[in-house]
C-alpha cells in the first residue's frame, strides 16, 4: 500500500491509498460541513443539500445522475453528520474515471426549484420515519439537551417546520459558502493509478471556487447535566440515554477513550453487559465514544421494561461511578484491545473501509494513518492512559434523557 496526497491551487485536497491487491476502488468527496455549521433559520439545510446534490447539474438531470451511477454498477450513497457531508462510491477499477466525472459534476448542483420542492417531501418523510424509531429520537434529543447552546446539539435532519420554511436561495447561499474547494477533500482507496486519478480530479475540480473556510463554536462541551423525561405513551419500552464528556478527535487520549467505552459497554462481555443484559434486566445496554472537532462524548444507552427503568438507571450510574473511581482492570483493557484490533484489521480489508479511515484521519488529525499506525496506537494504550482520560473527562458526569411511556422518572 502506498499513500499519495496533493493540494490543488484552489485549495482542494486529494489523497489516496493505493493497493494493487484490491479488486475495487472506493472514492469519497468529504465536505467539511455539517449540522453544527448551520444557523437556526436554516436548520436541516446540510442534510437537505446532501439530497439535492443527487438532483442534477447543468449537464445531468436527477434521473441521469442515478442512471450514470447505475450504468457503472457503482455502490454509492452519501451521509451527513454534525461535521461532515460525505459522498461516496465504490466501483470496479475500470470505472474510476466515470465515477470521478459523476461525483465531481454533482458536487456543483443546479438546485432547481422543482427538484427542491419535490425533495422537500422526501425529507419530511425521512423525518417521519425517524420519529417512529424511538432510539433515534432519544439520541437526537439527548444530544440537544447535552450540548445546550453548543452548536453540536443542532439536529441533523431539522424539523418538519424548518424544512417546510426553507427556501431554495437560503440553501444556495449555504452551498456557496460551504462547498468551496478548500473545504473539500477527495479520498480514494483500492486498486487505482494515482497519477491518472490525480490528473482527473484536477481536470474536474481544479476550477472550483476558492473561499474562506472555518467553523465557529469549537469550545469543548462539558454537558448541561440536565435530566429530562419525554413521554411517548404509545411506546412499549423505555429508552434511556446518558451523555458524558470525552476527548476531541485530535486528542492523543482518544484511543484510550475508545477502549474505555468498549470495556464499559460493548455488546459482549462489558460491564454493562454483565450488569444489565446478562441478567435479563434490559434488552440492550451499550456505550460508544464519539469524537468531534474540539470535543467528544460518550453515549451510554439502554432500553427495556418501563417498570425497570428507574432501577436500571441506578445500575448504569453505579457502573459509571465505579469505573470513574476505580477505572478498569488490566484484563478488561486487554479484552477490549483484542476486539478493537480485530475490528480494525477486518474494517481495513475493503477499500470502502480504508477510504473512510484515511478521509477521516486527514480531516481530523491532518495526517495519513496506515492500518498499522492505528493498530500501534491501540496496542500502546496502558491503564495509566485510561486513568488520565477519566481524570480529564469524568464518565459519570452525565446528562440524561428518557423517552418512552413513563411520565416521570426520579433522578437517582
Amino acid at each position: 500500500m502506498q499513500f499519495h496526497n496533493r493540494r490543488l491551487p484552489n485549495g482542494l485536497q486529494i489523497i489516496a491509498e493505493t493497493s494493487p491487491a484490491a479488486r475495487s476502488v472506493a472514492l469519497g468527496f468529504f465536505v467539511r460541513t455539517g449540522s453544527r455549521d448551520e444557523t437556526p433559520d436554516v436548520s436541516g439545510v446540510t442534510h437537505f443539500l446532501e439530497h439535492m446534490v443527487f438532483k442534477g447539474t447543468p449537464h445531468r438531470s436527477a434521473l441521469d445522475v442515478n442512471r450514470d451511477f447505475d450504468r457503472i454498477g457503482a455502490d454509492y450513497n452519501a451521509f451527513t453528520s454534525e461535521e461532515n457531508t460525505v459522498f461516496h462510491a465504490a466501483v470496479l477499477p475500470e470505472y474510476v474515471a466515470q465515477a470521478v466525472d459523476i461525483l465531481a459534476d454533482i458536487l456543483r448542483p443546479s438546485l432547481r426549484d422543482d427538484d427542491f420542492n419535490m425533495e422537500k417531501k422526501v425529507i419530511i418523510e425521512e423525518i417521519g420515519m425517524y420519529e417512529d424509531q424511538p432510539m433515534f429520537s432519544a439520541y437526537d434529543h439527548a444530544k440537544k439537551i447535552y450540548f445546550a447552546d453548543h452548536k453540536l446539539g443542532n439536529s441533523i435532519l431539522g424539523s418538519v417546520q424548518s424544512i417546510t420554511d426553507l427556501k431554495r436561495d437560503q440553501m444556495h447561499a449555504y452551498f456557496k459558502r460551504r462547498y468551496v474547494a478548500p473545504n473539500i477533500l477527495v479520498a480514494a482507496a483500492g486498486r487505482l493509478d494515482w497519477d491518472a486519478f490525480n490528473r482527473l480530479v484536477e481536470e474536474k475540480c481544479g476550477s472550483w471556487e476558492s473561499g474562506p473556510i472555518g467553523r465557529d463554536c469549537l469550545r469543548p462541551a462539558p454537558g448541561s447535566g440536565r435530566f429530562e423525561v419525554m413521554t411517548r405513551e404509545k411506546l412499549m419500552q423505555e429508552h434511556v440515554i446518558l451523555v458524558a464528556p470525552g476527548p476531541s478527535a485530535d486528542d492523543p487520549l482518544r484511543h484510550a477513550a475508545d477502549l474505555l467505552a468498549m470495556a464499559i459497554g460493548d455488546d459482549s462481555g462489558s460491564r454493562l453487559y454483565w450488569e444489565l443484559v446478562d441478567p435479563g434486566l434490559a434488552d440492550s445496554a451499550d456505550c460508544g465514544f464519539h469524537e468531534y472537532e474540539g470535543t467528544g462524548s460518550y453515549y451510554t444507552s439502554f432500553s427495556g421494561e418501563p417498570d425497570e427503568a428507574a432501577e436500571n438507571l441506578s445500575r448504569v450510574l453505579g457502573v459509571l461511578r465505579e469505573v470513574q473511581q476505580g477505572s478498569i482492570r488490566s484484563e478488561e483493557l486487554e479484552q477490549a484491545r483484542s476486539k478493537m484490533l480485530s475490528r480494525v484489521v477486518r474494517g481495513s480489508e475493503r477499500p470502502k473501509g480504508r477510504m473512510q479511515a484515511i478521509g477521516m484521519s486527514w480531516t481530523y488529525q491532518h495526517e495519513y494513518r496506515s492500518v498499522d499506525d492505528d493498530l500501534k496506537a491501540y496496542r500502546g494504550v496502558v491503564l495509566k492512559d485510561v486513568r488520565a482520560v477519566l481524570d480529564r473527562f469524568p464518565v459519570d458526569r452525565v446528562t440524561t434523557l428518557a423517552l418512552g411511556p413513563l411520565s416521570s422518572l426520579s433522578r437517582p
Partner: protein
Amino acid sequence: MAQDVFQHTFENGLTLLAERMEHVRSAALNFLIPAGCVYDPPDQRGIAAVLADLSTRGAGSYDSRALTLALDNLGVDRSESVGAFHTRYWGATLASNIPSALAIYADILRRPHLPEDEIDAVKALALQDLRGLEDEPRAKVLVELRKHHYPAPLSNDHRGTAEAIEKLTASSIREHHSKLFRPNGTILSVAGNIDWTALRDQVGQLFGDWKGGLETEIKLGPMPAKRGHLTKEVEQTQIAVAYDSVPVAHADYYAAMGAVNVLSGGMSSRLFTEIREKRGLCYSVWASYQTMKDRGSVLCYAGTTNARARETLDMLLAELRRLPAGIEVEEVERLRAGLKSSLIMQQESTASRALALASDWYHLGRVRSFDEIQAAIERLSPEVIVGHLQRFPPKDFTIVTLGPEALAP
C-alpha cells in the same frame, strides 16, 4: 476469476466448506444448524431463539463469563441468530485465531451447559425482544407480512409468542437441543486466510464423533388470508407487499433476480424513480428477493405519511403489474453492471463469502463458481426477464399495512 474453494462432508453428515482468500488477514466462520424456528413445536414458539442465547452461557469447560472472555480475547465479533430453517452462529476475527475459536464453537454446539439458573434471564430477554418489536413499525409490518404470505410454520417469527416463552423449562430446552443440534444437515463454512488441510483435520477432530440425529419433518398448515392491517398510532403508514417467485434452484432464478433488480436494483430502478424521485411519496421504498428451498418470493416495502398511503400502495402495485409488459435494454445493462460489481466486491469480504458458500450448499448442494454466476448475469436480456415474468407474473399479492387506519381495497 481463480478461486480456492474446498468442500468435505464428514461421515456423520457435517459439511465443511472453505474458501482461501490470500489477500486478507482475517477469516469468518459460519455455522448453519438445522434448528430454525420452523421446527419450534407449536406450543413452544420461540424455543430456538431461547436455546441460541442460552447455548453461549457456558459450554465445555467454560462457564458463561469464561466463554465470553475467551471469545473476546480472540477478537471474535459474533452473533447468533435464528432464521426459518437454521440457527446461525457467525464469527469473524484474525485468521490466526480461527482454530482456537472453532474449538470453543465445538463446545457451544455440542456441549452447552444450558444452565437452569440462567433460564429466567434468557426468557426475560426474549420477552423484551417481543415487546421491542412493537416499537419498531417497519420490522413489525414485515413479520406480519410473512404471517400472511406463508403457511405455518414457514411464517414463524423467531421471537415466538409470550405465552410459549413463559412456559419453557430447562428440560424442554435441553430436549430441543438434543433433537435438533446434529451434524447431519449442519453446514460449517470458513472464508479467509486459512489453510484447508489443517482446517479439515481440525474440524474432523472437533466434530467427527458427533452423533447424527433424525431429520425433523414439518407439516404445512393452510394458506393464510392475504390481507392484513395492524392499527397503530405512527407517523408513517407501513406498507408491505409480497408475491410468489421461483427458488434459487429454479432455471428461472437469474431472470427472477433480474426482475427484482429492475424494480429495486439501484437508484435508477423503477420503484425508487417512480415513487420517491418523481412523486416524493417515500424516503424508503424497496423490493427484495427471498428464497426458501422450495419457493421464492419478492417482498416489497414502503413507508409514507398516513395521508399518502393509499396513493403509495396504488403506485407500488401498478409498478409490479406493469413489469411483464416490457423492460428496456438500458435497464438490463444497468442491472447487469450492478450484479457484476457486487459479485466482484463480495470477493473482498470474508463474511460475505462465508455466508455465500453455506447458502449455495444449502440451496443447491454445491458452491457456484464466480465464473458460473458471471456467465449467468451476462446472459440476462430483456427477452429472458420478460419471458420469466410472463411465466411467473407478479399477482395474487399479499398486502399488509400498519398505521392509524386500514386502507380501502
